């Protein structure tokens, strides 16, 4: 496959046209196989409900394995690269990384770390920097997410080295959703807590189990009382539906009991405390 032509530079073996075509064909086959497996596995995972994310976890591993094996096969079998040539290749690669491919290399290493360390998986809801959304794909170079506004955002894999990444569900279908309701001082909190709890447990998006309890918290602020429900939705795709469903149904009943929100001027976003505090 590899010709030892007398006129080649530095005694390096040259690659004949047949080998080159084989290499290109193999890369195309690897790409097509990856796409087909991704499509089939994704379609299957959508049918199995709560196991969706567990199945999608296999995707990046398969992808890296297929590409990894293809590269190994090309190097070892087609090009028959010797140890000496490998060192030479390593040197060239090092130079290439030093000159301009270092980001691409960092992305590749980042991708491998994401696959094995699993800071997040396909299907997770993650926040990286200012971006928040559901992970669609973990590729060789970048991770793509879909934001709540349906924007498709590509995040380079090396970002995991430089920024903190938060995953809302770490590979599970369910995820915690925090729903806040603000009430005026003097409201009957016993009734309000009961109604909010019932709005949560009767929501068609809720998920409850021994390990996934519902918590209702109350906190006084100078101009209003915050009632907070912490509960899990059965599928992270219902995150916003769940929040909206609980909030709207709770308010409908709270108003019937004469419980009101604080004056509109008292809740403006600039004066709000950090929503993530407890």
């Amino acid at each position, binding site marked *: 496959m590899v010709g030892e032509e007398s006129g080649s530079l530095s005694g390096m073996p040259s690659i004949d046209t047949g080998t080159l075509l084989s290499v290109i064909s193999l890369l195309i086959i690897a790409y097509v196989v990856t796409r087909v497996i991704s499509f089939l596995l994704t379609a299957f995972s959508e049918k199995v409900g709560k196991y969706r994310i567990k199945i999608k976890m296999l995707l990046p591993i398969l992808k890296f394995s297929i590409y990894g094996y293809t590269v190994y096969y090309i190097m070892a079998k087609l090009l028959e690269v010797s140890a000496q040539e490998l060192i030479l290749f390593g040197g060239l690669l090092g130079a290439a990384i030093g000159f301009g491919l270092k980001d691409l290399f960092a992305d590749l290493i980042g991708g491998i770390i994401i696959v094995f360390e699993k800071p997040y998986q396909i299907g997770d809801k993650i926040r990286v920097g200012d971006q928040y959304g559901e992970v669609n794909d973990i590729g060789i170079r970048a991770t793509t997410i879909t934001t709540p506004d349906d924007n498709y955002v590509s995040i380079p894999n090396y970002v995991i080295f430089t920024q903190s990444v938060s995953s809302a569900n770490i590979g599970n279908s369910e995820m915690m959703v925090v729903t806040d309701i603000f009430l005026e001082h003097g409201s009957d909190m016993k009734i309000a807590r009961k*109604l909010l709890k019932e709005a949560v447990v009767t929501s068609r998006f809720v998920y*409850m189990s021994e390990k996934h309890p519902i918590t209702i918290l109350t906190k006084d602020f100078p101009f209003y009382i915050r009632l907070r429900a912490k509960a899990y939705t059965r599928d992270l795709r219902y995150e916003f539906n769940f929040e909206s469903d609980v909030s709207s149904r709770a308010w409908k009943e709270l108003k019937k009991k004469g419980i009101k929100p604080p004056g509109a001027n008292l809740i403006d976003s600039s004066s709000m405390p950090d929503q993530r505090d407890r």
Partner: protein
Amino acid sequence: MGKDGEVDFSIIGLENEIEQIQSNIDDLENGKGGSIAIIAEQFAGKTTLINKVCSMNKNRVEMISLSSVVKDEKKLQEIEEQKQIKIIDNCHFLYRHKIGGFDIIERFLKTVTSPENKQYITTWNIHSWNFLENTHEISKYFPVQIKLQGLTQEQARQLILSEYEEGEIQFIEDPTENKEKMINFVIDNTIFLNKEIGIPHLKINYRQIKSKLSRKKIILTPEENIFENIYSISKGNPGISKAIWEQSLVYPQIKPGDIKEPCQDMELDNDESFILSILVSMQNASRSDIIEIAGDEIDIERALQVLSKKNIISSEREHYTIKPEILKCATNFLRRSRLV
């Protein structure tokens, strides 16, 4: 055993549970015992069990059977009279899956734990029970919990055939060409843009494949084949077993091929799945109750129409219930969607 020493087939498979409840009733006279919850899915024989217990303790118990959602507490007060032991059938009707729908059950649970030395024997749908366990920790109110197990294949056979004379039913071998195939070409109907359209596709018959794999070259008689098929669908649920039998019997004959796999691949949207989960938990519900529970955001008419068209539910005088033969696959579907 019945009065004349005959076997009472209606309570087949429930003997241990009856004994356990009877022992608890006896304990009460000695100042022991506690309230009992009998928990099972629909068609599993809760009412049969409770009726038997009631008939065995006529002078000691009073019973009320709830058949629809309790909206007025007076219904419960009817039984708070003299007798020491109260039996309440279908307690899942004590709450509604809506905001403000838990007041009656909360008062009932307080009654159960009141210091008066009274015992309650209650029956619950298992999905309602699991829901109330998450919301109200209901198991803490009932020290004795009895979960009904399904019948064995042989018990299901005995129960079904107990209604016929010996030799009355003819079990017939399938003609070769009518035997179930492992892969079938089927057309499923679905509603698209308010029109019913058929979607042709191939469907794998898992039951047939499993049967082929597990048979290990043992040739079964048509009768064994029939009851094996019924059992594989009903998983020992007596009500489901009977329903499948009645649907398949062309009196007085029945063939293994007549026991059709009732489950299609369920494709339901979120609203339809939610309505189905309500029906699976409540066992039966009126249209008005469903409307009250589902609220304004669900198109209930459309969801009920889809569930009816797909032969998942049946209705009678505006009361909806799941079809027995569908219960198992509906429950599996809802479990995958985490709605039960």
